[in-house]
């Protein structure tokens, strides 16, 4: 799958008209400089040789140099990716902790008022682009109520803890700098919320429909006939069958947040990979774009793989048929 993605990205990068070397160096560069640069990027070699260099680079963790930052893009990616990871993990937490219970309630109390409220929230989540959420949340919480900061990962006078994982919240907890943790939390709430809302809507819609489906099953009636209490049915007996198919989609939603992170990081000046990616696109920074897309696709594929493994483990039908 990753090989396929790498070919796709490679093809997109190569077939589209325009000379990346010329774009990178700008109109003032001499033809000689452009040629030199083309050689450096292996652009003068035949296409399969180019792909070979590209793959070799990926496997060695060397994706070339960024035209814009003049650093190795692998270094750039490892600088910016943790910020994004922190953001989407936080957003995913919100999605799961709010979206799933909302969906369970809606499915359980189908067509009651709580269902309608939950569906309205999900619908608004789904139909509103995350950058619009970002703007709305910013106006309400950062400007109107003035209780949360507007941009960045930390306040200007706060020093980030020494890097362990690159996730500031976790690093600061490990190092015991709890004031930094609180500052970082304050900064992450709005972007994470903006990012999570559309995924949250999807998560709760899906949970709802799976829960309703399970509640129509014979084994739920059977459970009632055997005196299970409703709480136990809702939290265990119906939940497990409903959540297993939901999990696959949650994994997809989680990975898809990387796409929406582009929009949210842009609004909140969040120094993550998506912001780096947008910059790369604006500066036609070929290696940086490739690296960004590759890391996102890799993340996407790995997330799905993990989810598939978890689902296979949880679902006895798959687990036992594998043996």
């Amino acid at each position, binding site marked *: *799958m990753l090989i*396929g*993605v790498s*070919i*796709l*990205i490679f093809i*997109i*990068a190569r077939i*589209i008209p*325009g000379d990346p070397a010329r774009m990178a160096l700008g109109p003032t560069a001499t033809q000689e400089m452009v040629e030199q640069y083309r050689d450096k990027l292996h652009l003068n070699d035949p296409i399969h040789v180019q792909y070979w260099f590209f793959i070799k680079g990926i496997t060695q963790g060397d994706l070339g140099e960024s035209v814009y930052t003049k650093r190795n893009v692998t270094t750039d990616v490892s600088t910016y990716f943790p910020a994004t990871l922190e953001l989407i993990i936080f957003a995913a937490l919100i999605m799961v902790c709010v979206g799933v219970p909302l969906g369970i309630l809606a499915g359980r109390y189908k067509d009651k008022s709580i269902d309608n409220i939950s569906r309205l929230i999900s*619908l*608004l989540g*789904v*139909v*509103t*682009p995350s*950058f*619009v959420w970002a*703007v*709305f949340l*910013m*106006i309400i919480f950062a*400007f*109107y109520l003035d209780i949360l900061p507007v941009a960045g990962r930390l306040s200007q006078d706060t020093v980030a803890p020494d890097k362990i994982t690159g996730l500031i919240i976790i690093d600061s907890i490990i190092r015991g700098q709890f004031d930094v943790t609180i500052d970082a939390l304050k900064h992450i709430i709005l972007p994470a919320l903006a990012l999570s809302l559309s995924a949250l809507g999807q998560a709760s819609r899906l949970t709802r429909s799976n829960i309703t489906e399970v509640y129509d099953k014979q084994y739920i009636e059977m459970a009632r006939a055997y005196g299970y209490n409703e709480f136990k049915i809702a939290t265990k007996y119906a939940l497990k069958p409903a959540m297993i198919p939901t999990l696959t989609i949650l994994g997809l939603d989680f*990975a*898809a947040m*990387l*796409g*929406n992170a*582009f*929009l949210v990081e*842009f*609004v909140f000046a969040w120094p993550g990979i998506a912001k780096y*990616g*947008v910059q*790369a*696109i*604006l500066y*036609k920074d070929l290696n940086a*774009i490739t690296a*960004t*897309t590759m890391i*996102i*696709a890799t993340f*996407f*594929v790995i997330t*799905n793989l993990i989810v598939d493994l978890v689902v296979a483990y949880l679902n006895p039908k798959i687990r036992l048929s594998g043996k």
Partner: protein
Amino acid sequence: MMKIFKSRGWYKFSKNPLSVIGLLIVSIIVLMSIFANYLTPFPEHAGPFVDIPNKIKPPSSTYFFGTDKIGRDTFSRIIFGYRTSLYLGVIVLCIAVPIGTSLGLIAGYFGGKIDAIIMRITDIFLSIPPLVLALSIMAFLKPTLTNAMIAVSMMWWPWYTRLIYNLTRSLKNEGFVISSKIVGASHFHIIFREILPNCSASLITKITLDMGFVILIGSSLSFLGLGVQPPTPDLGTMVSQGSKYLPDIWWLSVFPGLAILVIVLGFNLLGDGLKDLFDVEI
């Protein structure tokens, strides 16, 4: 026309107020953007118009949603922005749906090697988050409306391939397909006369729902400056430019933002209504 309103389908559809609201939103927006030249108070504000004395006016009875830094009416620009959005949505789906549908039909109907190749490629496209794919395509193209349409179409067709593929695979084993095979109908006949018509309810529903989501993605691209360029009015661009002047000139980003929400909501409600009406899974 009156016949529609008397039909059983309309009765069922109109039972759900949300679907009717969706239909209303969509029809109003479509009509307004078609006749934008006559219906907006300041049609000339859609282009590179400058009216410095009236710049940065808050919402009022003259300028419903206020004016921007160079005095253009936000309301008029939103209506013209809808026109851009709808144009983008229609073109994207006109490209993506036929490509995706025919690939899905071919892969699902013939199976075997061709199935494997088409569905592998589809899976690869689906394994990149949609917006990221569009962005990486846009990265190598000039940011224009046409290119944005190409990029979004490129990421959209696989969803139709997968939908139609699954439908074709199950329809292929239905009695009416098998019986027309037995009487010696051509592949062409079976695909286009037997299978495709039975996919139409799902297709129409998905197209309606997607219209909203294509508009959403399109506005996201232009929000990042990678789609429609000024002075063409576009909702995403307006939010992006307006957000620079937060919080003082809030109306420049809030109203276009709401406008995107409303149109996507409209198509979504309408699509959900159709989904219930046709009783299809998407």
